[in-house]
Each structure stands twice: as structure tokens, then as C-alpha cells.
């Protein structure tokens, strides 16, 4: 029986704070439902306290008998996840009030999913990684179906559940195989065994393939991407924003830990070929299919598939350069998506109907701030300077070129060119086409507009001055590659 030490508990203080907040929300919901208006504030306080705790307490390194590694990397990922959650909660409040679904469970589930993602990203043992993944996924099944009266939302929840269950099965089976091959679930032990053997034996290769497959579902990488458009389109927009960012971040970190620990780049040309194939296929399919979408959220789903393809390039390169590139890309991806989804959460009339790009016509002058925020985020997603999306692509492709993958960089930049085409469609609908005859009624929300504007400002400022993010990412990744 493992008895937690004081250091163990302090190390997961943010997770504990979030769990307590979630429990508190459920209790208040049960006994004082009149306070519902303040739930988002309460959840926000919990998240801010968690950020404070992560920044305030010393980073102890290995805790919980070496199962978790609370170091600079964990801190970087935790804070990035928590910032994403702040955006989610900020847009959730007005959104839930508008759709008359504001209850405490929503925030409680978001916070529990957050804990899951944080555990997943800071664990160095396959068992807590799996626990984290489940804790992350189960609340999301519910959250996607949160708009009970909307068929598409229920459908989204069900789809995500079925796909998620399959992904979990893959992951568990992969873990079992790796355990069988190496007699350990510890990533460091597995990594050093595999790396020193200099090759992937069949058992390890199959186990790894299953784990990557399971994670690929969460990342919506080709060929495990098919759920993404329907789930993105159907789920409540704040949940979609969360779903687009947080699980993908956690899954990428796990993938990076695996790839880097086993030194896959150098010992396994099969891995490089397979991963590069996945990256190229995700980019190409995501971008090309996005062109024909008429629904903004579906379009962003395909764009997300493509973006994870770019991030995969950095995972392949791994090491100090590639690892830092993964982290920078995550930060960029989070800000751009949060800004975009916040804008869409506001520029939406009814949740059970599609979010047509055509409905955005003329909004550039009707809702200047939100439209400008959305435009900024879309240009950034397309990789146009001076926004952070460009900086992130620069860092990723720089890592690829430096490691000799010039061709991956070429495919990547050509893909971002293709992507410009569909991002521009939204921009020109907003600015260059007149308002439609039947003007959609978009409810203005100061809170959502602020969230969108803050995200867009972040996209601009960190795009012009990316040095702090780069520095933090490089420090964080040093603990992994040391």
C-alpha cells in the first residue's frame, strides 16, 4: 500500500484544488441552485487557484513512487491546459445561459476532465496515463451530449463515446503488450530498454502501434479522424473548444514522451515512415476536405486534423528542437482555437442548427471586435505572419529542416498554402459580402467577446514577440531530453 508523502500531495495540489472545486460545484448545485449564475465564477476561481498553486509550489520532480514527474515540462503543460480551461469557462457561462442549460455539473465535468488531462500529461507511467485518459474522456462523453434537446449534440456525445471506447481499448491492449515485452509500465524503463536494444522487436512494435493508434483517436489524426467533424459540429461550442485543445495537448505530450524515450527517430525507420505518413495524410486530407465545408465548426474540425499533422512533424523530430516545437505549437494552437471558437460561440443563432459560413456575411462591420478577433485567429491558423501561428510553424519546420526532413517542411508549407484558401473564405464572408437579407440574430455577450479579444491579442503579441514562450518551452523540454 502506497502511503502518499507530503511532497506527493503538494505536487498535485492543482489537481486537488480542481477536484475539490468540482465537488463543491456539485454540492451547491444540489442545495442552492439559485446560485447558478455564479457557477462559472466559482469554477474560474478554482482554475486560477490551481494555476497559482502550480506556479507557487516548488517542482519536486518524481513523485508518487516515480509514477508522476512534476517538473518544468509538467508545469508548462499544466498551465497551458489551465489557460485553455479559463477560456472554456469564460465562453461557457453566457453560452449555457443562452441555451438554458446552465447547471453545476457542466463546470464540474470540465474541471474533472481537466484533472484527467493534467494527470495524463505529467505521468511517466502507462497506468496513470491510462487513468488520466479515462478521467479526461468520460466527462467529455457527457459534455458533448450536454444539449439534451438537440439531436446533433446527443449524436456527438454518442459518437465520441463509441470512438473513445475503441481508443481506450487500443491503448489498454498496447500497454499490456509493452508490459509483456519489457516487464514494466514505467516509460523510462521501457524507453531505455528499447533504445538500448537498438531496434523495435515485434511485440514492442505492435504494442507501440496500438498505443499510437489509441492516441491518434484523441488527436484526430488520419486514419482515426472520422469522428471529429460530427462531434465538433454537434457538441456545445465551449466543449468543442475544450475538446479541440486539451485532450490533443495531453495526448501529444504522451506521444512525445514515448518517441523521445525510445529514441524512435534513430532506432526505427518504420516509425519515422509511419509517423511521417500519418502527418502528411492528416495535413493533406484535413486541408483539402476543409475546403468544401460550409459549416464553420466542421471546417475547424478538419483544420484541427491538419494542425495535428503539423504537430506530428515535430513529434517525429523529437529531441530538444522537436520537443520545444511541440510545446510552442500547442500554445499557438490553443490560443488560435480558443479565439476562433469563442467568436463562433457568439456568432451563432441556434445550437441545433449548423453554423454556416454564409451566416457570417457582413458581420465584419456589425460585430467589429469579434470579427476582427476571428480574422486574426484564422490568419494565424493559416500561418501568416506576424501571428503566433506563423511562429509555431516556423519553429516546427525549422526543427524538421535541421534534422534533415526538408521534404516534410515542404509538404507542410504547401499544406498551409492550401489551408489559406478556406480560412480566407470566412474572412471574405465577414468583410467583403453584404449582410444576408434575413439577418441572423446573434446575441452579444461581453464576456465571450472579451475572451475572443484576449485570445486574438495573445495571438498577435506572442506572434511578434515569441521569445518568452520559446524560452519556457526550451527550459521545459530540457527535463525530458536530459
Amino acid at each position, binding site marked *: 500500500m502506497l502511503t502518499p508523502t507530503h511532497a506527493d500531495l503538494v505536487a498535485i495540489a492543482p489537481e486537488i484544488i480542481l477536484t475539490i472545486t468540482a465537488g463543491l460545484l456539485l454540492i451547491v448545485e444540489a442545495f442552492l441552485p439559485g446560485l447558478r449564475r455564479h457557477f462559472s465564477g466559482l469554477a474560474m476561481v478554482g482554475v486560477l487557484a490551481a494555476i497559482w498553486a502550480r506556479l507557487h509550489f516548488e517542482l519536486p520532480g518524481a513523485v508518487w513512487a516515480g509514477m508522476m514527474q512534476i517538473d518544468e515540462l509538467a508545469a508548462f503543460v499544466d498551465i497551458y491546459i489551465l489557460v485553455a480551461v479559463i477560456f472554456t469557462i469564460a465562453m461557457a457561462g453566457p453560452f449555457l445561459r443562452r441555451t438554458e442549460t446552465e447547471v453545476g455539473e457542466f463546470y464540474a465535468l470540465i474541471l474533472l476532465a481537466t484533472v484527467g488531462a493534467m494527470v495524463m500529461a505529467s505521468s511517466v507511467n502507462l497506468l496513470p496515463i491510462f487513468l488520466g485518459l479515462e478521467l479526461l474522456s468520460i466527462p467529455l462523453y457527457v459534455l458533448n451530449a450536454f444539449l439534451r434537446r438537440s439531436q446533433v449534440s446527443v449524436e456527438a456525445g454518442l459518437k465520441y463515446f463509441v470512438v473513445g471506447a475503441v481508443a481506450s481499448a487500443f491503448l489498454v491492449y498496447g500497454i499490456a503488450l509493452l508490459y509483456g515485452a519489457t516487464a514494466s509500465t514505467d516509460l523510462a524503463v521501457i524507453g531505455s530498454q528499447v533504445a538500448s536494444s537498438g531496434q523495435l522487436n515485434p511485440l514492442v512494435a505492435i504494442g507501440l502501434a496500438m498505443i499510437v493508434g489509441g492516441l491518434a483517436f484523441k488527436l484526430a489524426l488520419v486514419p482515426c479522424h472520422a469522428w471529429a467533424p460530427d462531434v465538433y459540429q454537434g457538441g456545445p461550442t465551449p466543449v468543442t473548444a475544450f475538446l479541440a485543445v486539451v485532450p490533443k495537448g495531453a495526448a501529444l505530450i504522451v506521444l512525445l514522451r514515448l518517441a523521445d524515450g525510445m529514441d524512435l527517430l534513430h532506432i526505427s525507420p518504420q516509425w519515422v515512415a509511419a509517423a511521417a505518413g500519418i502527418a502528411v495524410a492528416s495535413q493533406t486530407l484535413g486541408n483539402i476536405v476543409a475546403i468544401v465545408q460550409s459549416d464553420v465548426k466542421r471546417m475547424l474540425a478538419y483544420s484541427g486534423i491538419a494542425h495535428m499533422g503539423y504537430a506530428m512533424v515535430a513529434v517525429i523530430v523529437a529531441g530538444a528542437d522537436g520537443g520545444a516545437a511541440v510545446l510552442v505549437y500547442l500554445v499557438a494552437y490553443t490560443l488560435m482555437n480558443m479565439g476562433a471558437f469563442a467568436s463562433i460561440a457568439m456568432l451563432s443563432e441556434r445550437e441545433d442548427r449548423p453554423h454556416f459560413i454564409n451566416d457570417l456575411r457582413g458581420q465584419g462591420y456589425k460585430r467589429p471586435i469579434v470579427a476582427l478577433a476571428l480574422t486574426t485567429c484564422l490568419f494565424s491558423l493559416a500561418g*501568416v505572419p506576424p501571428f503566433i501561428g506563423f511562429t509555431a510553424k516556423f519553429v516546427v519546420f*525549422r526543427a524538421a*529542416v535541421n534534422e534533415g526532413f526538408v521534404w516534410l*517542411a515542404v509538404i507542410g508549407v504547401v499544406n*498551409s*498554402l492550401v489551408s489559406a484558401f478556406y480560412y*480566407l473564405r470566412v474572412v471574405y464572408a465577414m468583410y*467583403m459580402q453584404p449582410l444576408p437579407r434575413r439577418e441572423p440574430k446573434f446575441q452579444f455577450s461581453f464576456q465571450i467577446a472579451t475572451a475572443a479579444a484576449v485570445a486574438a491579442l495573445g495571438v498577435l503579441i506572442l506572434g511578434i514577440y*515569441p521569445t518568452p514562450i520559446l524560452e519556457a518551452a526550451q527550459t521545459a523540454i530540457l527535463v525530458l531530453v536530459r
Partner: protein
Amino acid sequence: MDQHLLFLLTLSPTIFAILLLPIPKHWKRVHRVVTLIGSTVIFAVSTRLWTGFNPDNPAFQFVDQHQWIPQFGISIHVGLDGISLLLVLLTTLLLPVVVLAAWSLNIEHIKSLHITFLLLATGMMGTFVSLDLFLFYIFWEITLIPMYFIIGVWGGPRRIYAAVKFFIFTMVGSVLMLVAILYLGWFHHQQTGVWSYDYLDFLQTAPLLSVSGGWLAPGLLVFAAFALAFAIKVPIFPFHTWLPDAHVEAPTTGSVLLAGVLLKMGAYGFMRFNRALLPDAWDIFVPLILALAVIGIIYGALVAMVQPDVKKLVAYSSVSHMGFVMLGLAAGTQASTQGAVLQMVNHGLTTGALFLLVGMIYERTYTRLIADFGGLATVMPVYTGIFLVVTLGSIGLPGLNGFVGEFLILAGAWQNYPLAVVLAGLGIILGAVYMLWMVQRIFWGPLDNPKNEGLSDIRFRELMVVAPLLVLIVWIGIYPTTFLNPMEAAVRLLLAR
């Protein structure tokens, strides 16, 4: 002050754009006045670059460097040599001109128009002064967004198509340039062990890239990636198809900046990067560039000849004129290169003036079809005179600016490439044909369209708009030394590499 002058000057339009933000959008006059004052001040300050510039020094002057992304060896590094000096001044000169030209336009979103203008100005100037390739790339790409909006929001009926085409075409070229820049950075690290994307560092290592070993030699691929970006921007035949669409749909002010400055960014890139960084690959590519330049000269002229729309005619004439610039660069002698740089300025002045003049008549008649005009000389004598001077400048009448540039290019190219010169000379003749024919159909003959009878002649404000360009057109024609002098040393250094 001189120490940070260049960087501050580059940023200053953005600062003015930020100043415009809090002003309410229905105060249209305030926006116009602030932008006009701002751009005039920027031009006035930029003359300090001219007076403070030492023409005998071929190195970069007004150099300014600030730390930016030290992890990758990227810094904010700007500087000016004789070539960029002229282009920066051309940019700052055209700024107040276009602002004044848009003065009376009765269009929507005046505030946004002025903000996009100013942001575009920062991008254009930054492109010409950057000495770090990361910085250069950012400025280069930044110009896309404002221009996309200028064409797409304030343009003609097919504006969305033109705007998207402009954006996508330009981006096609530049994304591969990004990979080339990354590759050069990696190569620099291989050679020296230091991470850098600085132009002056690349000058040392990039020429070492191998160009032998077939078409996949790294030097040639890097050259091709840069060349594609610049060829689309110039535009060199056959990459020119975005240009007529963009020009015809863009509002007058957009066309002026597009022709006056944005196209120069391409030719400038060829000199600054392809020629200076990759001289060996340049030598291999010269025949191709020459051929495309000559094709562009003749093709542009032939297509211009049959255009029914004045603006489209001027747009195709740009293809022809930029062909001369590329011919001068490819010929690679001191005279032809200096001629090419001067011709860039000339083209900015004359084509800019032509677009302004076409815009004035469009504001009066809402048509640009040559067939709708005829005999305008009787109702608009002063306008006709100015139009004629600019036309003659454009087709290279001795005593006006076009002649000097074209003469230098052709004379300089003669010793090495006589055939190209002969063919280009044909282009000059064709140029005279289509321009004069257009003038004849618009201004001479009977005034047969009754709608044109009441047209007013050029107004004082409009005269002020074209006056600075006219002065320079004559000045360069009579005494080009003023402008050839400062770039001589820089061109000599460029060709010595």
C-alpha cells in the same frame, strides 16, 4: 536619432494606424487629415535618409540592430544601401500621394481603409530595409493582408475573386521561400556552428552552397524557391496572371501601391537575395531569366494593345516594363543593373501616375472602357496634357524618365546579349504603339459620347496628387545623376560578388 531612424520610420505608419483606432469611424475628415499629416511627416522624415546617406559607401547605412529571438539568432536588423534607399523613398513619397488621391472618394469604411494603408506601408518599407531573413519574411508576408482587404473590400465587381487570387498566388511563392530560408539557416550552422538568419551572415555562407550535381543541387533548389516567390511578385511571365485581375479590381489607391511598390519588392528580392546570396546559381539561371524577361516584354505589350479597358492596359504594360527591369538585372553589367534599379523607380512613378489619372476619369464617368471616350482633349485640356507627359515618360521619350532607364538597360545589356536587346527594342516600339493608340482613342478625335461633354478638367487637389510624380518624371529625364549616384557603389558591390 539617426541610429534608430530607420526602424522607427518603418514602424511609424503602424503607430499612426494605432492613433486612428480610437477616433470614431464617422469622423471621416479627421481620419483623412490625420493620415495625410502622418504620411507627409513620414515622407519628410524619410528625406533625412537621403541627406544623411553617404553615396560613396557601398555598405549598409543607418544600421540598427535589436535583440529579438536570441535562441535562433534572430534579431531586428535593418539597414539601407543605395538600392533600398531609392525604393524606401519611392514608398514614402507614394504614401501621401495615395492618401490625397483617396480624399474625395465617397466610399464606406474610410477608417479601415486608412488603417490598412498605413499597415501596408510598414510592410513595404520593412521589406526593403530588413537585414534579417526572418524579419524580411514577416514584412514580406505582412503586405498580403492589407492588400487583400484593399482589393476585396474596396474593389470592383469581381473583387473577391481578385483578392483571393492575389493572396493565394503570392503565398504560393513565399511558402517555399520560407523553407529555403530555414535551409540557409541550417547550412550556416553547419558551416560556422552558429545559429543565425542574418543577411550579412548568409552573405558569407550561402554562396558556398553547391550548385553542381544536377537539378537537385541544394544551391539551385534554394535559388528556385527564392526565385519563385519573387517571380510571382514582379511578375515575370508566366506568373503574371494574378496581376491584371488584381489591378482591375483594386481601387485606384490600391493599384498605385501595388504597381508602385509591391511589384518592386519582387525585383528587389532578386537583387538582394538571388543575385547576392547565390551568385553561382544566378549564373546558371541567367539565360532562363533573360528569356522570360524578353517574353514578358513582348507578350505584355501585345496583350496590352488589345485591351478595351484602360486600367487593364496599364496593368499589362506593367508586365512589359517589369520585363525590362528583369532584363537589366539578368544582363548583370554596371549600367544595366543601375538602369534596372532606376527603371523600378520610373515604373513606380509613371505607372503610379497613370493609375491615378485613370482613377480621376473613372470617378467622373464610372467607366474605364476606351470605347466610351474620345475627344476628351477638348473638354479636359490640362488633364490631357498631363496624361500625355506621363505617357511619353512611360514609353521612353528622351528627356523624360523612361528613356534613361531603358537606355541604360539596353546599352548595358548590348555587349553580352545583343539578341535580347533587339527583341526588347521591339517591345519599346510596341509600347509606344499601344500607349499612343490609347491616348489617341481617348483624347483625340471628335467628342462623340454626349455623356463626356460636361466633364470638368483636373481639380487643384488632383493636380497636387500628380504634381510630385510629374516633377520627378521630368527630373529623372533631365538629370538622372541625382538618382544614379547614390546607388552606384551599392550596385558595384553587388556585381562584384
